[in-house]
């Protein structure tokens, strides 16, 4: 199943206004790709907010008031 043909986008010029030449179009696509990743990475670089680290820690530690933050009271009965 190794089909490493480069994915060539089919001619997609259905509504392209005549002035867009394909070279420029490719550059715009590259720019879009860059922006997409940059936008995504900007958030990724913020790391893990405390809120989520705390959440996982609390859920992970039985008997330590997991129900207070998560509203999953079922687990609490276990330690009693």
């Amino acid at each position, binding site marked *: 199943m190794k089909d490493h043909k480069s994915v060539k986008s089919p001619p997609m010029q259905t509504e392209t206004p005549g002035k867009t030449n394909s070279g420029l179009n490719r550059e*715009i696509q590259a720019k879009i790709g860059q922006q997409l990743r940059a*936008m995504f990475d*900007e*958030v990724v670089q913020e790391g893990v907010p405390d*809120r989520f*680290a705390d959440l996982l820690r609390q859920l*992970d530690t039985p008997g330590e008031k997991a129900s207070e933050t998560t509203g999953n009271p079922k687990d609490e009965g276990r330690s009693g």
Partner: protein
Amino acid sequence: MKLDPQLRDQILAAVPSLRAFGISLSGNVDRADDLVQETLLRALANIHSFQPGTNMNAWLFTILRNLFRSEYRKRKREVEDADGSYAESLKSHPDQLGRVEFQEFRAALKELPDEQREALILVGASGFSYEEAADICGCAVGTIKSRVNRARTRLAKLMHVENLEDFGPDKATRAILAGNDR
């Protein structure tokens, strides 16, 4: 339930990109964080159904994506007359959404149909393969490919620019407004 530390680390490691995915989908940091929180709770509640050795990121992305889809449908019904309110909420949190140029880009992304946007983000930003993206969205690989292609074409049109130097905020905004079919 005691969580396998390895699984917990994998989940934690996925949180930053889950947030980025959530923000890209919803265009709103607060909603994205709620989505991530809900995703984590669901993941932990269903951790037994995760198969160790498979892709934790893909698993979590699937959960978040499905949550967003179901919530979005509900919400759409609730606010269907308050058309501009969502865009307003974006404007009122400019700092949260990072630098100006990304806001323009996000605005353009918002113009895409949901399924095109998510396909583009999964493949073009999150680094998933077409196959993984197809799994996450529950559709065929070919469908993902065509959605990504259509998303790129549409974005290029939305960000219609005479030359690349014009890719800045104002031009993009105008392009988006002009592209709005109203």
